[in-house]
């Protein structure tokens, strides 16, 4: 089974391989996603169940791999993509990947079925399936990928599909805003992750994680270790909603509940945790790793649990409690001992089971009653008995009570913190606080709506259709089964997962009953405290309200401030650069040119030495004066005719210079052009409004300065060009060969029609197009177009 394929083998070779299933599984889901809208069009009400068969069969396939993977084997497969730049779809199934694959496909199947009922009759449900299954494919690809770039590709796709899902209810502004927020926060982290992954590839020389892992301490000892760590953590922390990036997750509850249950509790938000677990063998174990993960994880864990209790919206309570659990997982990965690795994996599994169920239940309650506020819900057990049973089982697991799997997860968590070599006391205290707050949140969100006096709700509640009940019920059954026989059912997969985290094969023992350990004592303490907190939640919220001002400087406000300042900076900058005034643009152009050329000349060449080689004749000086005077008159003249006449003077003087230097035909051309220009200008001016001066003195002074700078630069350049000659110019060739080879004595003409004929063709074209332009400008006007 252990088929080691090097990346880059062609697909045809791969087809012979058992491990092709890894790649096939991702593509199957992609295809399913693409087909979903069409399926919906034909199958209608049964679409959800039909589509769920895809992930369900993948779940079964992955489940058959458990024994082999638990023995320490890995499946590998690779698909060529761009081997020349080290990009390949390399897939690798080890314990960690298998655990996530099972969660993704298993819960995914339940969610698809659930969504079919939840969104029954929604006119965009086809698209919903499409995005949801696309997400599933991305997530599965992420946990299976071994190639660094492939990891990032799937990582980004989860962000994108999440964006489309959060904004599914796209007509509401809040949904659009929440979608954007999630995308920007996780997208920013994603870009950091990209940089981190590429640096890992550069630093280690390999682009396959498994190879990097095999190379031992190369990365930990590399000079780039710290930047890599920071970048990877930035990616993981944003994705997994760690403090201070936790704020996007509760806002993402704008998404339809199936999305929250799937992406924002059991899968996508765990992508950050996954990447940390995956990187643990290569990047973990250093002081900076332990510090960063323990501290951020613990803070997130307590803060999330605290905030959960501050809310009374079903989904927001669950979202904050998810933040808390994610913090716990990060903390455990920070501790990094074998026990902590086992605890992290067990906790991931336990959390996915109960939180997925609770989200679906919350959706059911909202769906059936039209009420989201826990304080306004009560006594539903009589109306929705089946839902109530499932909910209470999941809540018990969340609260960490025996005999459910949540208890097992929490016990190993406490043990791991107790045995942590660093910060043990603090971490234990934080964990107990988290556990207590979680107990209270579990009662609030999953028990309270069903017990006590019945409270009236907007809709008359009853148990939902079977498709909506099946999902949470199956998850609850798993919670019970895994709790009752943890070693038999969960042991292999947790052990395999922990082995991947540690980078070496380890055995784990999971048991419901550990004996009278300190952990059990802390558990009991947490439960008691939690019940107390639940009943005293008014007081807890009072304290929270008193702490309200802190929120004003919190990260959520930071995000808002960043968005506001982005808009401010953007419009300020654009007002300055893109002012809308042509004159400003011209000034910037001239100053940039003169500044850059001048600076470069002085910096790279030095002060140019310009020697006047020949003393000019008096008539040359005279002509120069004429040109200057003409130019001055143009500038100061208050009449258009005067200015045009002066411009003509400049032109004719230039023409005379041509005459003096032996280019009579050029001079003829120049004279003709000047004459024509003056005549044309005069004709046009006749139609223009009266001359007016718009610029003040300051503007004119500024313009003069700009003009002088531009002119000075040109002068220096021309003098330099005259001074310096690299080689004989090609014009010498033209002079020598014009008559013998091109049979023309007028060199200028020969250049135009023979040596550089293509230039002439182009210029003719320019004139022709200009003529068309004039024609269209005159003839085709919006006011005339109506008549055509």
């Amino acid at each position, binding site marked *: 089974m252990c088929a080691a394929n090097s990346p880059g083998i062609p697909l045809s070779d791969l087809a012979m391989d058992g491990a092709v299933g890894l790649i096939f599984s991702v593509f199957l889901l992609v295809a399913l996603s693409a087909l979903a809208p069409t399926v919906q069009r034909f199958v209608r009400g049964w679409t959800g169940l039909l589509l769920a068969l895809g992930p369900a069969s993948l779940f079964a396939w992955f489940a058959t791999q458990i024994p082999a993977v638990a023995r320490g084997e890995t499946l590998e497969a690779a698909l060529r993509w761009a081997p020349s730049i080290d990009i390949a779809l390399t897939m690798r199934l080890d314990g960690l990947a298998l655990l996530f694959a099972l969660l993704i496909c298993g819960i995914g199947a339940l969610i698809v079925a659930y969504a079919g009922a939840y969104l029954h009759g929604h006119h965009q449900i086809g698209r919903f399936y499409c995005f949801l299954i696309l997400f599933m494919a991305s997530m599965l690809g992420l946990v299976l990928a071994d190639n660094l770039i492939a990891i990032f590709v799937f990582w980004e796709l989860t962000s994108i599909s999440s964006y489309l899902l959060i904004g599914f209810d796209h007509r509401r502004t809040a949904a659009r805003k929440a979608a954007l927020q999630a995308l*920007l926060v996780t997208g920013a982290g994603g870009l950091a992750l*990209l940089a981190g992954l590429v640096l890992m590839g550069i630093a280690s020389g390999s682009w396959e994680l498994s190879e990097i892992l095999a190379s031992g301490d190369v990365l930990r000892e590399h000079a780039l270790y710290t930047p890599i760590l920071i970048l990877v953590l930035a990616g993981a922390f944003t994705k997994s909603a760690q403090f201070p990036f936790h704020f996007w997750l509760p806002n993402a509850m704008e998404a339809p509940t199936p999305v929250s249950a799937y992406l924002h509790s059991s899968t996508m938000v765990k992508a950050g945790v996954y990447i940390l677990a995956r990187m643990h063998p290569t990047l973990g174990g250093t002081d900076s790793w332990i510090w960063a993960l323990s501290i951020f994880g613990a803070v997130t864990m307590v803060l999330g649990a605290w905030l959960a209790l501050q809310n009374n919206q079903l989904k927001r309570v669950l979202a904050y409690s998810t933040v808390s659990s994610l913090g716990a997982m990060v903390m455990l990965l920070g501790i990094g001992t074998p026990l902590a690795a086992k605890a992290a994996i067990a906790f991931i599994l336990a959390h996915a089971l109960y939180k997925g169920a609770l989200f679906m239940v919350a959706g059911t309650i909202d769906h059936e009653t039209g009420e989201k506020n826990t304080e306004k819900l009560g006594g539903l057990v009589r109306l929705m008995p089946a839902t109530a049973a499932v909910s209470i089982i999941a809540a018990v697991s969340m609260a960490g009570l025996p005999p459910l799997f949540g208890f097992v997860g929490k016990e190993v968590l406490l043990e791991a913190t107790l045995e942590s070599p660093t910060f043990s006391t603090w971490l234990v205290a934080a964990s107990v606080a988290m556990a207590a707050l979680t107990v209270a949140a579990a009662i609030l969100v999953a028990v309270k709506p069903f017990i006590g006096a019945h409270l009236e709700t907007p809709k008359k509640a009853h148990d939902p259709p079977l498709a909506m009940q099946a999902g949470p019920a199956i998850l609850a059954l798993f919670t019970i089964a895994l709790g009752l026989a943890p070693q038999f059912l969960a042991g292999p997969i947790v052990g395999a997962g922990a082995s991947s985290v540690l980078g070496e094969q380890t055995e784990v023992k999971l048991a419901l009953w550990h004996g009278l350990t300190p952990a059990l004592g802390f558990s009991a303490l947490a439960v008691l405290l939690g019940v107390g907190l639940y009943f005293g939640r008014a007081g807890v919220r009072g304290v929270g309200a008193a702490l309200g001002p802190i929120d004003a400087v919190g990260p959520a406000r930071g995000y808002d401030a960043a968005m506001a300042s982005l808009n401010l900076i953007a419009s300020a900058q654009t007002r300055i650069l893109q002012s809308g005034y042509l004159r400003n643009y011209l000034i910037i152009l001239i100053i940039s040119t003169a500044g850059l050329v001048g600076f470069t000349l002085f910096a790279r060449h030095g002060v140019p030495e310009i020697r006047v080689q020949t003393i000019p004749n008096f008539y040359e000086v005279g002509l120069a004066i004429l040109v200057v005077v003409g130019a001055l008159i143009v500038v100061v003249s208050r009449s258009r005719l005067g200015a045009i006449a002066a411009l003509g003077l400049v032109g004719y003087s230039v023409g005379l210079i041509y005459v003096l230097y032996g280019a009579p035909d050029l001079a003829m051309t120049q004279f003709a052009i000047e004459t024509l220009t003056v005549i044309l200008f005069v004709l046009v001016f006749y139609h223009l409004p009266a001359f007016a001066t718009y610029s003040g003195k300051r503007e004119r002074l500024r313009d003069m300065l700009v003009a002088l700078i531009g002119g000075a630069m040109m002068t220096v350049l021309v003098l330099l060009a*005259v001074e310096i000659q690299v*080689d004989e110019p090609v*014009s010498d060739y033209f002079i020598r060969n014009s008559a013998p080879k091109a049979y023309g004595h007028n060199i200028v003409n020969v250049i135009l029609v023979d040596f550089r004929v293509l230039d002439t063709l182009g210029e003719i074209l320019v004139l022709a197009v200009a003529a068309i332009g004039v024609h269209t400008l005159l003839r085709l006007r919006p006011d005339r177009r109506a008549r055509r």
Partner: protein
Amino acid sequence: MSSLALILPLLIPLATAGVGILAWRSRRLQRAIGLIGSVVLVIASVWLFVLVREEGIQSLQIANWQAPFGITLVGDLLSVALVLATAVMGVCVIVYSFGSVDRARESFFYYPLMHVLLMGINGAFLTGDLFNLYVWFEVMLISSFVLLALGGERAQLEGALKYVTLNLASSVIFLTGIGVVYGVAGTLNFADLALKLSAFEEQGIVTTLSMILFITFGVKAAIFPLFFWLPASYHTPPAAVSAIFAGMLTKVGVYALIRVFTLIFNQDISYTHTLILVVAGFTMVTGVLGAAAQHEFRRILSFHIISQIGYMIMGLGLMVSGNPAAVRLAIAGAFFYIIHNIVAKSNLFLISGVANKLRGSYELSRLGGLYASNPALSLLFLISAFALAGVPPLSGFFGKLMLVRAGLEAEAYVIVAVALGVGLLTLFSMTKIWAEAFWKPAPDESDDESAGESPGKAAVRQPGMALMMAPIIFLAVLAVALGVFFEPVYNFSIDMADQILDPRAYIEAVLPPEYIEQVRGGVK
């Protein structure tokens, strides 16, 4: 045969334009001629592409005057790939125009002007001569100016005025630069300039000359702080015209920068290319911030053109690194980014035209509801927009990846951070369009869920819509294909970079060996 292959990309549009003008009385005939011409151009460009790919750099001495004395056309991998891209875009835009450009414009030489523009672009890509490049710039400038102003709407004329004034100013600078370069080097042929200037002892002067060309090509490429002509004008003409401008015109400037700063001005890289790298950073940031401040479909896109020019010249600027592998990847990345951007950016402009046709506005505040009414258009927009923002596995991601990896290998951390941050802001802008034009309910729509359905669906059946959608679908597929089949494109980009980074092959393809010997010996 090779000489024919090199000249056809100029002759075909020239002939098409000429015949088109003669057929000015019949719109139908003009359309047919325009389409046939552009399809034939694609065939000719493919031929040239294959020829150069298989047999190396091709050159053609116009009128048989041996370089450096006449004008030389040169096709290397960079040129011919861009010529091919131009031709493909030509077909796309012409087909799109059939469905979108009004009769009056069509009657007034719209298609011939388009072909003159294509000829100018091809000329700029193929010429091996500095002054001839100027001529092609002028051909592009005048034809684009007339296309911009064609129709004579007020906003168009205002934009066209700024466009033509600033571009003419840059032409003056270019012409001065040519004069000075010729004065110093005595030649205008690229290969000859490369040969002579590299051996010239006063390198400070050469670097100074390079700055004049940097400015003038910089204006064409719309780099910081010379880009204002672009956002002032690109949102005014019909969408088809905006699309071809957005796809190709700035790329000509980038091409010219890459050409002269690899072939000719490669002596003082630590100065020139550091400058390019810094400007690249500013171009990315100012462009993307400019876009963030806009609330009109095409204005947002226009500012993004600027921002993405930054990525392309970032690749050029990374030549400053001493790491040959990084430099190679950077140049290849710049090239790939150009190709990707032609596809994605033009397509977004084409989509903006469809949105305008359906909803009668480019203003985001007046758009809305397209997601509910036009799922296919929404999907096509998402593909193009996410490709532009560099989301995998679409084309833009790979361009970004190449540049980021090259930058990190070159240890140019600041520019990499800027590039990544700008990528995020690009995503922000694209989602702004998405949220406003697609997700948001249309402003005139009632809150009734189903109300958004009917008007859009009816609008899809508008005449010409299929002709507008066909090129959009094609380009979106291309944006996906460039990512999915990245390997061959990548290999091509690397071959292109190797060719560009070793100017000897270019010089030897243009100049006779005895001449090269003579210059090399003579200068020493």
